[in-house]
């Protein structure tokens, strides 16, 4: 069986006044129907990796790879029309902040229906029905009411559940979640994660979970890629996290203050130039 996604030697670079900046420098991994976490600090290239797979890299950037395949489709040579069909259809993406990523002048229901009808031939009535079911599936208590609301009328946690509903309504095979809970409160975060976890499990999707929070990612995913300066410095099974070898991974784990540990001052990362190599 071919894997869901094959990435080999992915590079994303931007031409700037001071020369070529390589945001992603040779990332390789394969993904089955599993949960993969990509972790790193800002600027490590984790979001750029997700966006390149989704086909959302801005046109001025240069993308190259030995392989970038989604199922049987070569994403590098796929025409724009095919990429458009994949996006939101077979590959979907949940973004960080529902405040900025939902359309503010369109009701929640219409946005979900629009996604579905772009990718599947269904009647208006059926689309509405499926949107309502999807809202119920992300545990929105009164789907009929929320269907007619605008995004500013719902809370952040509800907005994020709406976005998950919108992304899952077309039954994608691969979901890329880019910091899906970073803009949410701690208490709401867990609620949203457990909904995401259940739906991904039930539908047998592949999931790429991009975040800067190593602990959160490892509690959620099967496997974690740790990125630094555009490269993967360590790949580790989530259950083996305590045995991480790379000093950067260890540093990321150590520097977070947790309940019940007394470390003054906190250990900080001593970034070694050889990690960039």
């Amino acid at each position: 069986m071919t894997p869901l996604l094959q990435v080999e030697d992915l590079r994303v670079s931007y031409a700037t006044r001071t020369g070529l900046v390589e945001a992603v420098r040779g990332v390789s991994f394969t993904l089955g129907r599993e949960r993969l976490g990509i972790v790193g600090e800002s600027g490590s290239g984790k979001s750029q990796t997700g966006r390149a797979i989704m086909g959302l890299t801005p046109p001025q950037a240069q993308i190259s790879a030995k392989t970038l395949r989604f199922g049987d489709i070569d994403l590098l040579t796929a025409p724009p029309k095919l990429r458009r069909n994949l996006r939101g259809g077979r590959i979907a993406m949940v973004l960080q902040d529902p405040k900025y990523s939902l359309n503010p002048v369109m009701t929640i229901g219409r946005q979900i229906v629009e996604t579905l009808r772009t990718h599947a031939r269904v009647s208006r009535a059926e689309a509405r029905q499926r949107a309502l079911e999807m809202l119920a599936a992300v545990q929105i208590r009164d789907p009929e009411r929320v269907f007619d609301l605008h995004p500013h009328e719902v809370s952040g946690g509800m907005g994020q559940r709406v976005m998950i509903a919108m992304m899952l309504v077309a039954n994608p095979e691969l979901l890329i979640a880019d910091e899906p809970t970073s803009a949410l409160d701690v208490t709401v975060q867990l609620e949203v994660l457990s909904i995401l976890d259940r739906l991904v499990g039930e539908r047998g999707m592949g999931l790429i979970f991009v975040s800067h929070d190593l602990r959160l990612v490892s509690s959620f995913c099967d496997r974690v890629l740790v990125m630094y300066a555009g490269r993967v410095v360590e790949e580790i099974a989530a259950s083996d996290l305590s045995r991480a070898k790379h000093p950067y991974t260890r540093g990321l784990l150590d520097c977070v203050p947790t309940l019940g540990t007394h470390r003054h001052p906190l250990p900080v990362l001593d970034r070694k130039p050889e990690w960039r190599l």
Partner: protein
Amino acid sequence: MTPDTAPALSIRSLDVTFGPFRALQDVSLDIRTGEAFGLVGESGSGKSTLLRAVAGLAPTTAGSIRMGAETLKPGKRSRAFHSRVQMVFQDPFGSLHPRQTIDRQLLEPLAIHGIGDGERRILKALDEVGLGAGFRFRYPHQLSGGQRQRVAIARALILEPSILLLDEPTSALDASVQAEVLNLLEQVRRDRKLTFVMVTHDLGVVTHICERLAVMRGGQVVETVTSADLIAGKVSAGYTRDLMRASEGFRRH
């Protein structure tokens, strides 16, 4: 009460209302001189509003705030107040002027308060937050998030205040950069014997920095506990327990 144990801030039955909405309801707290006090809760719990009310940035409709022996009048705070109380905001991208150099932004509070000796003070403040003189004539867009937050801390410290109000100072930063900024905050507190009031939603951060904390919800204080009691699980409110469970991370059921 000896002068040493007199509260730095004493808040009594404070109400803040925005139109029909009561953002704070009957909040009373004492913050001791020299302690680090945390305010924890979810969005909309009123924790930031309480901090802003102390700074004179939110409309108080009832109750009183005392700083030392002085009762603060509602409305705009005096210059003397600002030389004793300074604030650091959450977003290091929004709280610095994008078209002014770091030098200019650090000079501003000195100019407002008519303090000379700018050159020496600016260099000292930059040095204290670990940035060095090389950053003096840069613009905010040339700095990283952590470096900007250091500038914001330098700007708050340059007037040599005794109380620092911190509104989620590290929640916009990466975990690794957060550790650096938390260490810096602890160090300046030790060096200058500052009183901290810190708003955060992260129990790990608050118990690391603060000795005591108040848990807030719906504009009210649910309970006030010491960090030691919180870590030991000696809390009385169910809501505090919910927060503690949430901070342990995701668990598959």
